[in-house]
C-alpha cells in the first residue's frame, strides 16, 4: 500500500525550508541561529521525510483497521465510533498515530455506502439509517470548521493529500482479505429488521423466526444483534420508550443497551444448549 502513496514534493520542500529557517533556542548573550545554520540541509531533509513517513505508515494502519472493522461487523462499528468518539472528535486535529477524525468518518461513510469498491450497504439500509450516515458524510466532507492547533499540522496537510488515491485501495484490500468471512449486507438485510422488531417490542433480540408456520427459529449472530441495536437507536422509533413509559432519552438508551446485552447473552446460552 505504501508505495502507492506519493507526496507533494513542492509542499514537502517548503516544509523542509521552513524547518531549516526555524530559530534554535539561543542562550543569553549568544547570537540566535537557525536549524539550517547548525545542520546540513540533507539532515533536515531526512528528518522531515522520516517523520512524514512514520505518520503516513501509522495513518494507513489506522484507516485499514477502520476498514477491517466495517468488514467484520458492518455499520455497527461506524455507529459506535461516532456515538463514542463524536462528542470528543478532534475533527481537524490529527496526531502522529491517528488521522483526523474528519478523514476517518468520511472514509467510513464512503466505504459503507459506495458500490463497487465499498460495501454497498446503501441498498439494504432503511432510509433513516442511510440518512444518518449521509449526514455524517456531509458534516465530515465540509472544509475545516476549527483551527488546527497541533504541532503536526504542517505534516498532516501533506499526508492527507497523499492519502486521496489510496483510500479506495484500502477498501479493496480490506474486502479482499476478509473475503468469505465478512459480515455482508445480505446477512444484515436477512436478520436486522426482524431483530429490530424484537427491540421495538421489548424482546431480547436473540433469535430469528424464519418460518412462523412451523415455529422454526434461528439463533441470531452477535453482529446482527449489535447492528439491530444501533439501527433501532438511530431510527427515532419510540415504541420501546412507550412500552417502558419513560421519556428520558438516556434511560431509554440504557434500557435498550441492556436489551441488546440480554440478546447476546441468551443467544450464547442457546448456542451452548445446541451443542
Amino acid at each position: 500500500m505504501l508505495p502507492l502513496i506519493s507526496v507533494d514534493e513542492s509542499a514537502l520542500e517548503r516544509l523542509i525550508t521552513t524547518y531549516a529557517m526555524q530559530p534554535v533556542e539561543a542562550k543569553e548573550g549568544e547570537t540566535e541561529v537557525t536549524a539550517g545554520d547548525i545542520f546540513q540541509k540533507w539532515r533536515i531533509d531526512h528528518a522531515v521525510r522520516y517523520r512524514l513517513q512514520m505518520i503516513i505508515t501509522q495513518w494507513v494502519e489506522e484507516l485499514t483497521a477502520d476498514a477491517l472493522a466495517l468488514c467484520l461487523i458492518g455499520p455497527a462499528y461506524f455507529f459506535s465510533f461516532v456515538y463514542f468518539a463524536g462528542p470528543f472528535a478532534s475533527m481537524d486535529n490529527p496526531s502522529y498515530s491517528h488521522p483526523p477524525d474528519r478523514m476517518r468518518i468520511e472514509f467510513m461513510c464512503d466505504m459503507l455506502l459506495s458500490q463497487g469498491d465499498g460495501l454497498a450497504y446503501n441498498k439494504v439500509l432503511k432510509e433513516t439509517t442511510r440518512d444518518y450516515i449521509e449526514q455524517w458524510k456531509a458534516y465530515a466532507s465540509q472544509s475545516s470548521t476549527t483551527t488546527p492547533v497541533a504541532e503536526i499540522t504542517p505534516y498532516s496537510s501533506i499526508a492527507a493529500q497523499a492519502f486521496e488515491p489510496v483510500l479506495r485501495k484500502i477498501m479493496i484490500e480490506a474486502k479482499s482479505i476478509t473475503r468469505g468471512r465478512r459480515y455482508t449486507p445480505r446477512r444484515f438485510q436477512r436478520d436486522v429488521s426482524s431483530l429490530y422488531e424484537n427491540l421495538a417490542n421489548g424482546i431480547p433480540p436473540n433469535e430469528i423466526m424464519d418460518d412462523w408456520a412451523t415455529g422454526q427459529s434461528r439463533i441470531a449472530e452477535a453482529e446482527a444483534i449489535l447492528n439491530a441495536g444501533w439501527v433501532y437507536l438511530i431510527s427515532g422509533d419510540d415504541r420501546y420508550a412507550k412500552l417502558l413509559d419513560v421519556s428520558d432519552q438516556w434511560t431509554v438508551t440504557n434500557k435498550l443497551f441492556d436489551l441488546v446485552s440480554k440478546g447476546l447473552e441468551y443467544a450464547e446460552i442457546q448456542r451452548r444448549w445446541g451443542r
Partner: protein
Amino acid sequence: MQRQTPYLTAHLLQLSLDRSKALRVELQRLRSQQYPPTGPLLLIELAIRTNEQISEELSAMLADPVLLAAIPTLEVEINLRAKTNLLAYLHLLMQYVQGAEIQYSPSTLVLPLRRLLKKHLRVRDFDFIVRASRWYNYSILPLIEGIQEVFSKADYSSLLAGFPSQFFIIDCPVSEKRNVPIHCMFAHEIGTLYIKDMT
C-alpha cells in the same frame, strides 16, 4: 541469646519468602472472584504457579546450611534478585485482571468476541482479557512478548508451557461497561490485530 553470625543470607531469603507469601494471599483473593472465560483465570493461574515455584525454591535455599553459613555471595544475590524481580512483575501483571471481573466488565461480549477472533485470526492459540479501565478509550495490548521476556530472563520459561502463544488485554472505558453496543469499537482493535497477523 545472641543470634549466630552470619545471619544476613537467611534474613534476605526469609524477607523474599515473606513477599512471596503476601503475593499468594492476593492471588488467592483474585482467584476467588468471578471472571468471564478464560483469559483472567489463565493469567492468575500462571502467576500462582510461578509464585509457588519461587516459594519452593526460596524455602529450599533457606534449608541449605552451606548457603546460610556465609554472607550473601554474588551468585546468591543474582539468584535472589531474579526471583524477587519476577515476584514484582507478577504483582504488576495482576493489574490486567482488575476490572475484568464479571460485575465490572462487559462480560456478555466476551464469548461473541472470542468467536469473532477465532473466525478472523490465523493464530489459533490465543486468549484475552476484556477489562474496564479508567482510560477513556478503547485499546488492545499484546502482552505475551513482555511475559516471555521477563520469564526468560528469570529462567522460568518452562512455566509458560501450555500458556497461549498470544495474549491480549482489551480495554474499554469503565463508565461505558454496560453499554454493550458501544463496544463495537473493539472491531477496530481486532482490525489492528488482523494487520499484525497478516504482516
